């Protein structure tokens, strides 16, 4: 029963990944695409968390790495947008 629930959750997360990717493709401005990348990263982290429940804990390391990469990429591109004068 738990396995079935985890499969349903993985399907929903994949659907939300696809929806966020649509926004990444058609977003009119660069910050839109940045928000979409943020959401894609977090949804992938959520998928890896569900996989950690499903098979083994080693998948959880990916959540840590994705969180680190997500924050660093967001702040870096935001800083690029304002030519380095963020605050």
């Amino acid at each position, binding site marked *: 029963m738990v396995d079935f629930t985890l499969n349903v959750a993985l399907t929903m997360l994949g659907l939300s990944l696809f929806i966020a990717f649509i926004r990444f493709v058609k977003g009119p401005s660069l910050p839109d695409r940045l928000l979409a990348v943020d959401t894609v990263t977090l949804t992938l982290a*959520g998928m890896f968390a569900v996989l950690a429940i499903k098979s083994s804990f080693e998948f959880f390391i990916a959540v840590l790495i994705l969180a680190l990469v997500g*924050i660093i990429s967001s702040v870096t591109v*935001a800083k690029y947008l304002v030519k380095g004068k963020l605050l």
Partner: protein
Amino acid sequence: MITVGDIVISLLVLVGSAWMLLGSLGLLRFPDLYTRLHGTGISSTVGISLLIISVILNFAREAPLFSLLAGLTLLFILLTYPLATTAIIWAAHRVRVPIFSGTLTDEWQLYEHEELSSEAGIYLEDFETEDQSQNRYMD
């Protein structure tokens, strides 16, 4: 055999992934960058929290150290992701990403970011007289 822990974990996982789906749907359907931030905010706080809390509960009995690592990861995400979204929206507002026409006010526009450090009294006077401020952000 289904235990109480299984039911709690599957409920948390289901609600968390539904929350992520709602966040992405908001990211797709909202009209404007500043309102789309709401969708990302939803999935980056509550959705990922529910999913990682279910991981914590799943490993709490057999491997408590893994639960500790998951809790630290959750703490890191909760501390840093609001910072990232704030940086994005700050930069976007500063490079004048267009605002949805149904927005009522944009109070921050009055302060003219480049002169944030100068005295605020001038801009506060602007802020009180309504027709001047109306002209400024209705173009």
